């Protein structure tokens, strides 16, 4: 059969069909699906208008042509053998209902089709009708949906990775790169991190075709190559044609490996580049794929930032904990509800509990005996907002501990307090030492009194010896007066009177010394200052004589009485006089002169001053003159002035020294007229 004959035959057959199927044609005309009728030789007999639209050919171009013209090359053979077999055996090589097969557009592009087949016989000839629906739009949507689903998974995986706090930064980045490879069909994906100081991008993660982190891309200078430029410019670089892209340097490699596309995004945090994520793919990248990469980039960037902050924070925490743990101070941090947030090793030691047993609990849970006191101090700090220093007692099985605790509020950036910081130093030992010291001081005061008296031993011995010697002599004289013949009774009586007077004098001296030596508790009485000064002067008179000191006493008249402890103040006065006398011992070239004065200042205080003309006090000595155990005397204990000052201060007065105009120094103290309990 020639071509012309065949064509005529087809037209005749078609005409016959048309006559019989007039109403069906109307349907076919209106259909959006391609309806193609072929004969058993697969020659196209009838096409509807939709066929033209779907395949791009005109009806004339298709009629009489083999159906295979509408199939991709690779399906044509299958079709021929399949239909031949069906005609011979009745066995279908494909499903006839809604089978999806690609068609071939006139342009050469494949068209996704959903095809159903039907067979009919007319005049003993077998015909086949295929209904093909263009499903490219549906297919595109489906693909997109699938991609979007994968993108959602990518998003989720990346988000999960970056919020995973236990993993290292590198592990996190590796998960992200792998997710990009898996869900964006990348050939490989890599992440670099920027070292801002060195201006270098360092390869941190690589997944897919390449997983090595060394090699020529391990370190990329900022601003160099496509990765360095992405980082420097903070702009993504995208291409679906790596062969024609200026920035792809190794085109041979790309050709060899079939790389089609590249996408690289800067990883930005608040306008700062922290790194770059990039991928190569062996197919073109859909817009949504690019968008997917674009959408995970900031998540990864944030993740990097958070991780670094976390690491820094963790490092800082470790550092702080290490410092805390190595501190001898007892340190704790509580939240504002009083729950322990952090304690150091010393804290654990002191309370005898492990941190796991402490954290999250309150003082009421842990130290019920002392908690309310701690809590009151905490509350005060929280309410006032200012740091406080309190002494706190902790009662444990091993005994009582006393702490000096400084508490302060910890506030966030906005100034809102969120925790209470407490740092305590154990002062149990110090308190004990302090109390011991107080005892020692009392002892010393006593000792010093004795010692001062000791310094005046000769003086006191003289004071007692004088009247005693006189008594003995007068007694002897009396006996002699009585032994005369006749006895001289008048002189004997005179002698007895002298004895009584001297006896009285001796007992006065004894009483004064006893009072001086007695470790009497401070008892304040109203003192006549002048009288009190004269008493002391009386006690030291002989000492001055012995040292050839000329004494002048200038007392102000009408001094009010002042409250004070007579013994203690006498002690101070004695001390000042003894010091002055001592100081003047070195003087050979002038008369040693001591001036003792009393006066009243501003009607508020009475001043007592002891002024010598000794060598005076050099400024270096003056600095620690009143310190305990500071002395310039070879035999001195150095406690006199220290104790004297504390006595005067206990009286609400002041003890100080001034250099005299010409020679020596004046030591003076004041006593308030009105009792001033300080």
């Amino acid at each position, binding site marked *: 059969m020639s071509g012309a004959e065949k064509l005529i035959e087809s037209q005749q057959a078609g005409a016959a069909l048309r006559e019989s199927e007039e109403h069906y044609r109307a349907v076919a005309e209106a259909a959006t699906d391609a309806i193609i009728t072929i004969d058993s030789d697969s020659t196209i007999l009838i096409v509807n208008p939709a066929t033209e639209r779907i395949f791009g050919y005109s009806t004339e171009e298709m009629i009489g042509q083999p159906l295979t013209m509408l199939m991709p090359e690779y399906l044509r053979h299958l079709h021929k053998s399949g239909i031949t077999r069906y005609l011979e055996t009745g066995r279908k090589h494909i499903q006839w209902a809604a089978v999806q097969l690609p068609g071939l557009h006139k342009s050469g592009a494949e068209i996704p089709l959903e095809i159903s087949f039907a067979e009919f016989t007319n005049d003993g000839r077998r015909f086949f009708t295929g209904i093909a629906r263009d499903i490219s739009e549906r297919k595109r949507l489906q693909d997109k949906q699938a991609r979007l689903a994968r993108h959602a998974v990518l998003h989720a995986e990346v988000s999960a990775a970056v919020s995973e706090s236990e993993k290292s930064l590198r592990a996190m980045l590796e998960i992200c790169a792998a997710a990009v490879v898996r869900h964006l069909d990348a050939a490989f994906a890599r992440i670099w991190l920027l070292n801002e100081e060195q201006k270098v991008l360092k390869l941190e993660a690589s997944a897919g075709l390449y997983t090595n982190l060394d090699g020529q891309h391990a370190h990329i200078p900022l601003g160099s190559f496509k990765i360095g430029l992405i980082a420097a410019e903070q702009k993504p670089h995208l291409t679906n044609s790596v062969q024609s892209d200026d920035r792809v340097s190794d085109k041979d490699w790309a050709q060899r490996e079939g790389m089609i596309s590249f996408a690289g995004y800067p990883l930005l945090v608040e306008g700062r580049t922290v790194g770059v994520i990039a991928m190569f793919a062996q197919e073109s990248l859909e817009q949504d794929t690019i968008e997917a990469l674009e959408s995970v980039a900031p998540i990864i960037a944030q993740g990097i930032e958070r991780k670094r902050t976390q690491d820094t924070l963790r490092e800082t925490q470790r550092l702080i904990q290490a410092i805390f743990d190595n501190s001898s101070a007892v340190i704790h941090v509580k939240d504002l509800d009083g729950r322990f947030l952090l304690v150091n090793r010393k804290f654990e030691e002191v309370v005898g509990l492990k941190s796991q047993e402490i954290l999250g609990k309150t003082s009421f849970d842990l130290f019920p005996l002392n908690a309310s006191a701690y809590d009151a101090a905490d509350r005060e700090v929280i309410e006032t907002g200012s740091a406080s220093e309190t002494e706190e007692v902790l009662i444990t099985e091993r005994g009582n501990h006393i702490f000096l605790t400084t508490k302060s509020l910890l506030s966030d950036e906005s100034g809102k307090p969120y925790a209470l910081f407490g740092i305590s130093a154990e002062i149990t030992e110090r308190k004990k030492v302090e109390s011991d010291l107080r005892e020692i001081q009392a002892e010393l005061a006593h000792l010093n009194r004795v010692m001062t008296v000791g310094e005046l031993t*000769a003086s006191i*011995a*003289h004071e007692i*010896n*004088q*009247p*005693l*010697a*006189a*008594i*003995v*002599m*007068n007694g*002897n*004289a*009396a006996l*002699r*007066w009585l032994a*005369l013949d006749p006895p*001289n009774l008048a*002189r004997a009586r*005179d*002698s007895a009177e*002298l004895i009584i*007077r*001297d006896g009285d*004098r001796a007992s006065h001296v004894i009483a004064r010394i006893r009072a001086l030596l007695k470790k009497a508790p401070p008892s304040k009485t109203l003192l006549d200052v002048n009288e009190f000064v004269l008493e002391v002067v009386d006690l030291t008179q*002989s000492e001055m*004589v*012995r040292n*050839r000191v000329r004494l002048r006493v200038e007392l102000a008249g009408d001094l009010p009485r002042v409250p004070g402890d007579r013994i203690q103040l006498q002690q101070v006065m004695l001390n000042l006089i003894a010091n002055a006398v001592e100081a003047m011992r070195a003087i050979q070239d002038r008369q040693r002169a001591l001036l003792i004065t009393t006066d009243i200042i501003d009607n508020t205080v009475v001043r007592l001053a002891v002024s010598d003309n000794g060598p005076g006090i050099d400024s270096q000595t003056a600095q620690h003159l009143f310190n305990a155990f500071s002395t310039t005397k070879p035999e001195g204990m150095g406690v006199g002035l220290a104790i004297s000052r504390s006595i005067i201060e206990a009286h609400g007065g002041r003890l100080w020294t001034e250099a005299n105009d010409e020679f020596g120094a004046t030591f003076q103290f004041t006593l308030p007229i009105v009792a001033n309990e300080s």
Partner: protein
Amino acid sequence: MTAPKPIIFIVDDDPSIRLALENLVSSTGQQAETHATAQDFLRDCPRDPAGCLVLDVQMPGLSGLDLQGELDHAGIHLPVIFITGHGDIPTTVRAMKAGAVEFLTKPVSDSELLAAINQAIEHDRLARADRAEVAQLRDRHEQLTPKEREVMELVVQGLLNKQIALKLNNSEITIKQHRGKVMQKMRADSLADLVRMAERLSSPGSPPM
């Protein structure tokens, strides 16, 4: 020349002691004179006092030791009894070297003190006698001519008249005459007497005790 009645001079700044000492001394029938300070005593002291001085070592102003020096300086030769409340060795030694006869520590027993006073008065009496003798000898010695003094000096050295004549380039006769004048003026009974007198004159300060 009759010896004046000795006076016990008491110098002590402490009125109790002063009065008690005076009382004690008076009760033995001796005359006491009290002074509160060394200066007072120096001012009121007679030209050539007889007796002794009872001194407190430590006194305001002039101390006992200072007074002792002052008295020496003024040519007043009173034996001194020191009384001290606290006799330390250096002070004691210094006082004794300066001529104190006794150093007593308070409280002083009356017998000790009175014995010391009696001893001091006796000491003073002898010293005064000695001083009087030396003064007499010096007066006599003043009466000699220069030539006679020369001769006396050589005579007491034990030279013979002939040797003296040779040494002084005089005749033996002339020397003999001078020697007779010396013996007469010095009221010496013998050569030995003259030698003793010469010794006293050469060391007038040391009493024969």
